């Protein structure tokens, strides 16, 4: 126990200040009222859905939870069920085998729901889809082909800072 406490004390606080929202990531106008956004701003629940990614984006979503980015310190947390969520964080090109699961997850999320697409594949189909956003026998391409997307964060994978920025943009009060 002594070692553990000593290590915590020695490590100190690593958390860095969060990035500002970036309006260029917005693909759909903000449709929520300011008061709701103010509520979400202090306690946002996110459900992550991997709709067919290579797991690269998942690595960075994990990293958002580390002490440097400390997403929970901002009152934002990942939850186990879409029924508890305000926001869906969707990665990957949507594989045809995940279409039903993604739609059901979306339907199970209570209104008002926000959708943030994470990574190049979620934005435009990425390397797995022929000719940008294109479909194939196994993939439906970008997430917006299956459910409405509010904010899209590009990158392969996007950095934790960019992911945070995308999440904060989705709940920012600026239109």
């Amino acid at each position, binding site marked *: 126990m002594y070692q553990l406490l000593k*290590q915590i004390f020695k490590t100190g606080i690593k958390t860095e200040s969060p990035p500002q929202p970036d309006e260029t990531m917005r693909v759909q106008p903000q449709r929520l009222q300011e008061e709701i956004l103010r509520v979400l701003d202090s306690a946002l629940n996110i459900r992550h859905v*991997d709709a067919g990614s290579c*797991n690269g984006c*998942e690595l960075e*979503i994990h*990293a958002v*939870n580390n002490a*440097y980015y400390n997403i929970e310190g901002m009152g934002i947390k990942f939850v186990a069920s879409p029924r508890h969520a305000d926001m869906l964080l969707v990665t990957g090109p949507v594989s*045809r085998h995940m279409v039903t699961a993604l739609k059901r997850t979306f339907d199970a999320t209570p209104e008002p729901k926000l959708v943030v697409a994470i990574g190049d594949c979620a934005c435009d189909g990425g390397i*797995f889809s022929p000719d940008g956003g294109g479909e194939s026998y196994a993939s439906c391409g970008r997430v917006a082909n299956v459910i409405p997307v509010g904010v899209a964060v590009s990158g392969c994978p996007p950095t934790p800072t960019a992911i945070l920025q995308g999440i904060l943009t989705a709940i920012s009060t600026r239109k």
Partner: protein
Amino acid sequence: MPITHPNLHLTKLAGAIHAWSGEIKHDDLQPICQNVQDGGGRLVALWGSDARPVGAASAANSNRQQAGSYEKISQEQSGFMLHIALVNEKGLICLSVPLPAEQPIYPDISRIFPVANRMQRAAYDLLGIYAHEGHDHRKWLRHGAWHGGSFPLRKDFDAVLSRTDEPGAYPFVSVEGQGVHEIAVGPVHAGIIEPGHFRFSVVGEKTLRLEERFGYTHKGIEKRFESMSLQQGAKLAGRVSGDSTVAYAWAYAMAAEGIAAVTPPDRTLWLRALFLERERIANHLGDLGYLGNDVALTFGFAQFWILKEQVLRNNAALFGHRYLMDRIIPGGVTMDLAESGQRTLFEECAMLEREVRVLRGIYEEHAGVQDRFIGAGRVEPKLAARLGLCGLAGRASSQAWDARVQFPCAPYDKLDVQMATYRNGDVAARVIVRFDELFESLRLQREILANLAHGDILSAPLEKLPAHGFGVGMVEGWRGEVLVAIHTDAQGKLARVHPHDPSWQNWPVLEHAVVGNIVPDFPLINKSFNLSYSGQDL
């Protein structure tokens, strides 16, 4: 020669890996597999290819019902090819079996190598080649997105005509008896993980049986390769399983360089090994953090992920990408390391060794942690050997295979890698192997930095490959052996690329590891393997 058999004529493949290839008749498939298995060898990968002459490929769609007697066919008339990669202590043995276009059937080998089961089913789903007399013919990678009688990897596959939305029903094996009930989990899980379905049959809290159902992230990677140039293919290979991007990119480059008979400059190879060890370090740090988290020691998660973040940030600063994606290309690497960078990495090594030693002490002395780790998810060495458990999880169950040790390609031939093995086969053993490998990788990183050869990092980048070539690359990634096979066509383009993830071997073993454990221990046991969904779904 790695194996001898009267009907087997092997030729050594060019390239970095100790590999041989040969063509056999399908009647010889089972005896040769048995021969390798008797000698302690394993099946690494199984895939198929469409070798029908262009234009004459249409008649053979869906005729598995007619599977009857084997017809003798000569090489010129061949329609499809079955390929298997076997490994024994001498090296990698790649065998091809020509199959007739009208009746592409081959003798089942899943009785010899149980691990072949899912690979055979996937080969049928994607190419329509069929394991005769196999005992399990349920679909594997196909759900309901394309018709059962159409096969995506056939050259005459029509993506539009084969579209369907039939429900992906799957006959799970059910367990019956008093008090038995099922828990269905997924494809969308409770954490930040990839999608897959787990069907638990339980009594009370105790797991009687687990059955996995995957293929949810099947996004057509293998088909996608066929429309790509060699360079584009390198990027795609690095995204088969994002957490193993270095291992895949290196295996792909190794296969391509083998076909072209090109050896990249020395410095390139040393840098590749540096990248591979850094990938291992980052993933082991992350897993050790999550394993702490899963037994309610969030301290472990916080501490290990601080260390992992520092490794990732050094990657970004020195090599331009946090996970080193696209740093390895056929012919070389795209980023060099400056001398100042070398100093940064030496300092990082010292810091990590110091910190991880403290954290290991805390994990080992924490009664609550050890109580959850010890005995959970045990895979006995005998079962591990029978099922072909490989990589990190294999080494935690006495399966002493590590490509860096047994088949060291440059620069590992100069590094004398110490293999970490343990025999308990439980979560605790997989944690110990991770710690040991982490320290070994840090030692290797120092060695690599100290011996980094001077010179170019890129020979002429490989633009094109010779026609009708076959090459294979195998790299010991952090999870286990990653294999990439490349076949080129008459123009030297990518005719068929097969990436193979060690998760194919290890997922079925997880089904056994959880039996008798309580359901709440599943996340912990699962994490201790940390297998890839994307890597096996393709």
